């Protein structure tokens, strides 16, 4: 009963152009995939590696310090030009420097060059001259560096405490206050604590001597991290790299999405896809059952089937427009009028949000689920149905006890295809609820815990936004690559989960494929 693998007639290998052509196509596809993934991996993950910082001396005596980014030939063979990332945007407004190679007289990598990651203005590069504490103490040289590292750890702890206080104590109470609760006293206590923390972070600054002879004074609370890449050993660099990747995955974005992490976007993408699956599966399966098992197989049913298949070809932005018009303005607007008129005119459900985005994508992927499930149902031999009926099963019992279990792998195939399509879809989301910045994920400890009305971040939209809408595209590009790689990985994980589920179910039910 089982087809013996390998018994199929095959094209003779190495004979004739057909086999070569086919093998060539496979190789080409694989190469393209490999090239895509390696580009994303190298450009994206390489960004987190602490690159050496060069001190460059030019012909005219000027000096600059920065990470070498790339080198390109000048037009008409007039030599080459190098791009350095010099940071210090607050000093001269530029963050990048193009230098003709011919103008460079010396390049060195002094061990005491410091790279600061700051909350604003991007990186700062220079030599640490002094560290001044809030009481006016002044440390210089190596002592300043040692003290800086210690102080940064303290600051990070304070910052975490502040964020926790804000997210878990103050924000919920502010919302409770808006809803008319009596939490003034608690809120006052929390606010006082917040001010204490804020005060503890303030004061203290460091003075940086830049390569071009300038001086940069940076308040310590602005500094997130400091490192001396030229003095780092490879294990140190690896640790810094790992930390950087972890922060990228676990933190929210900074600096208009051109820096920081993508955690809210990962969370939003996964949550939206899961909601979409939960919404699309029952509808798709029921529709397929109706079309295949219940409806009279006449001309009308055939017409509906063709229409469903054609729905799969409608451009996704069209679904976005539909979602905006029907879900957001239509249903959402009505819901607001009925249940949230207290807060009008500011909309609750009458604006894009998680629920509407999931529903729109569910609609978009509905044809995929219907078609896959229908194919699975059609593959089940009529004898199985008749066998169940002949034992005294009603049609409903036949469906639920024999037909549906046998069609489960096909349904899950449909869901897998739906997930693959939905996770990568960006265009409709821009109309129905994705946000440029929504650092609060839509799940928290507040009732009702899952906030379907909130806007959310999405990896696909994050890529689009960082690549085209940031002020500083050059510095956002590595994050764009990293985010793209992450999106591919997220889709892979979602698909693998569904495939694992399908395999698990098909071994339990003894799927048709085993015949």
């Amino acid at each position, binding site marked *: 009963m089982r087809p013996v693998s390998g018994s199929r007639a095959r094209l003779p290998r190495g004979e004739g152009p057909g086999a070569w052509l086919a093998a060539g196509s496979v190789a080409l596809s694989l190469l393209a995939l490999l090239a895509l993934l390696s580009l994303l991996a190298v450009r994206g993950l390489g960004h987190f590696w602490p690159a050496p910082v060069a001190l460059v001396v030019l012909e005219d005596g000027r000096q600059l310090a920065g990470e070498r980014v790339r080198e390109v030939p000048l037009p008409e063979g007039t030599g080459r030009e190098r791009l350095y990332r010099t940071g210090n945007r607050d000093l001269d407004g530029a963050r990048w420097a193009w230098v003709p190679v011919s103008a460079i007289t010396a390049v060195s990598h002094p061990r005491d060059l410091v790279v600061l990651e700051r909350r604003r203005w991007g990186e700062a590069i220079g030599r640490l001259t002094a560290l001044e504490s809030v009481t006016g103490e002044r440390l210089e040289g190596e002592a300043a560096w040692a003290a800086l590292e210690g102080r940064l750890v303290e600051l990070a702890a304070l910052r975490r405490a502040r964020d926790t206080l804000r997210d878990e104590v103050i924000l919920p109470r502010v919302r409770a206050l808006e809803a008319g609760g009596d939490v003034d006293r608690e809120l006052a206590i929390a606010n006082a604590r917040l001010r204490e923390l804020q005060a503890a972070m303030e004061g203290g600054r460091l003075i940086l001597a830049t390569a071009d002879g300038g001086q940069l004074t940076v308040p310590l609370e602005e500094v997130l991290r400091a490192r001396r890449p030229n003095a780092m050993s490879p294990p140190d660099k690896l640790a810094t790299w790992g930390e950087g990747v972890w922060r990228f995955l676990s933190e929210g974005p900074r600096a208009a999405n051109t820096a920081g992490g993508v955690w809210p976007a990962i969370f939003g993408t996964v949550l939206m896809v899961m909601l979409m699956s939960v919404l699309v599966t029952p509808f798709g399966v029921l529709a397929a059952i109706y079309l295949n098992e219940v409806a009279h197989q006449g001309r009308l049913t055939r017409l509906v089937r063709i229409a469903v298949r054609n729905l799969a070809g409608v451009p996704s932005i069209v679904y976005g427009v539909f979602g905006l018009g029907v879900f957001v303005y239509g249903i959402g607007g009505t819901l607001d009028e009925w249940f949230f008129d207290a807060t009008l005119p500011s909309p609750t459900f009458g604006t894009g949000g998680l629920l509407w985005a999931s529903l729109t994508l569910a609609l978009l992927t509905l044809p995929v689920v219907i078609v896959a499930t229908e194919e699975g149902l059609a593959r089940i*031999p009529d*004898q199985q149905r008749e*066998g169940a009926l*002949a*034992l*005294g099963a*009603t049609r409903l019992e036949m469906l639920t*006890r*024999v037909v549906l*279990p046998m069609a489960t792998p096909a349904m899950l195939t449909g869901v897998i295809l739906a997930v693959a399509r939905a996770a990568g879809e960006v265009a409709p989301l821009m109309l129905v609820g994705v946000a440029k910045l929504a650092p609060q994920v839509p799940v928290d400890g507040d009732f009702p815990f899952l906030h379907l009305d909130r806007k959310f971040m999405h990896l696909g939209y994050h890529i689009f936004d960082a690549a085209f809408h940031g002020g500083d595209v050059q510095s956002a590009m590595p994050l764009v690559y990293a985010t793209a790689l992450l999106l591919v990985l997220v889709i892979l994980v979602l698909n693998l989960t569904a495939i694992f589920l399908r395999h698990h179910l098909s071994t339990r039910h003894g799927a048709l494929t085993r015949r």
Partner: protein
Amino acid sequence: MPFAQDLRPSPDPAAVIDFSPEASSLAIRGLTLAYGDKPALRDLTLRIPRHRVTAFIGPSGCGKSTLLRVLNRLHDLNDEVERTGEVYLEGEEIHGPGVAVAELRRRVGMVFQAPNPFPMSIHDNVAFGLRLQGGLSKRKRDDIIEWALRSAALWDEVKDRLRASAWSLSGGQQQRLVIARTLAVGPEVLLLDEPASALDPISTLKIEELIRNLKSHLTLVLVTHNMQQAARVSDYTAFLQDGELVEYGPTDTLFTNPRLRRTENYITGRMA
């Protein structure tokens, strides 16, 4: 043979034996059936004796499988079917308004040409019909399952692997499993639609032996293409052609001394 005295010459042209109502399990009267405008059965009238094996033979497309499917109303599934005439099970019209189809199908079980066990364990296959009825303790259910598997001569082969997938059984075992599954719900009539045509000779012999054993408490109706099989297992044989009942009589008589030339031609293989 308790039925022998009931055999009477039947009206020409069809030699139809007419059992007394008390001795017959099923009675078909004036049954005509068409798929859309394609006629499949024409004015069939016959009685099927209780606790005997009755075989329907005839060329492909003669309507014998259709007739079988009418007996437990599987033709209901097809909206195009138009039927007139009556079918009585123990004196009750099976198409009557008070008849629950599910209940009827439990009383009239059916085994199909290709084995169709469900994709579940052996145990769950046999338990399927019992679970539909519900109201049985697990212990009672297990007893019935064992009894059904023994009745289908499968118990000794599967008793140590009841939890294994039914699809791991051989074709012959699967067919006996399907019979056990049908027996478990306690039918009065068992319809067999070419039950051995997809099986090897040894499995076929097992099925035939099983059929002979089952008639002690069941009425069996067998559709077969295989003349030898009909001769080996059935007590009565009906020959159908083009949707009409041509000849019906005790198997021995029909095969050795057919009344009609058409029947003789068919069973001797001289039919065009």
